[in-house]
């Protein structure tokens, strides 16, 4: 049981390392948010499950921690992405379309 938990924790930390690499390699803010959010969420879930296996009496609090992360992490990345858009953060050159800017322009054009 302890071994399984430890291996799960190790997998979680490797996923964390992926998110760190993603933050370094991705070309613009939005892509960085993407890799950061997904990888840390799954990493925390797996690591917490691993610790639940090692310490079954901690399960209650760790489940609360998991639910908290799953609820708040997407919300905070959504708010950061929205803030980036409205503060005029530029997207990478490879971007092929931006429906949100067009939508805002339409609103301004027809008041």
């Amino acid at each position, binding site marked *: 049981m302890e071994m399984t938990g430890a291996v799960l924790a190790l997998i979680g930390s490797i*996923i964390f390392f*992926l*998110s760190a*690499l*993603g933050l370094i*390699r*991705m*070309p*613009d803010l*939005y*892509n960085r*948010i*993407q*890799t950061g*959010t*997904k*990888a840390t*969420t*799954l990493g925390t*879930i797996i690591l917490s499950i691993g610790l639940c296996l090692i310490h079954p*009496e901690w399960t*209650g*609090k760790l*489940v*609360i921690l998991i639910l908290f992360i*799953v*609820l708040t992490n*997407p*919300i905070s*990345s*959504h708010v950061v*992405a*929205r803030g980036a*858009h409205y503060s005029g953060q530029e*997207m*990478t050159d*490879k*971007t*092929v*379309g*931006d*429906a*949100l*800017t067009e*939508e805002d322009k339409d609103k301004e054009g027809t008041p």
Partner: protein
Amino acid sequence: MKMKTALISVVLGLLFWFGLNGRLETGVLISGIVVVAIAAAFHVKDAVFGDVKFSPRAFIAFIAWLVVFVGELIKSNIDVMLRVISPKVRINPAIVEVKTKLKTPLGRLALANSITLTPGTLTTDIKGDSLFIHWIDASSTDVEGATKAIVAKFEKQLEVVFG
């Protein structure tokens, strides 16, 4: 509607309280009842859970959503991994508009969070029925195509649970 919110809020609050305290004893129970009642009053004021459906069908849909969600989360991490460790960064990003049929706030929150945690998509803004999604590998930039690719897999179940 108020009754429903109060009921769900009290059950959720008590689970939360006992999960935090980690033990069952009189003191925890007494203080828990007082505190959870206050917390439920705040939930009732905003009618957070007013539209959640109670039926066996909704329960099955909720489980189905959970299964799809966990599957997509794992898939999205494999996707991130492949993108990060491939020597050349392969991206084709765009912000696309998709439409949702969900009307209730909680359902839309669940949908947006699910979208953020699925492969290559990030909810950037929400205006009325339109969600604006940053898509790391945009295969179609028109509304119908994007809606089918991003929203459809969650919307069916969430519509049953949250309406």
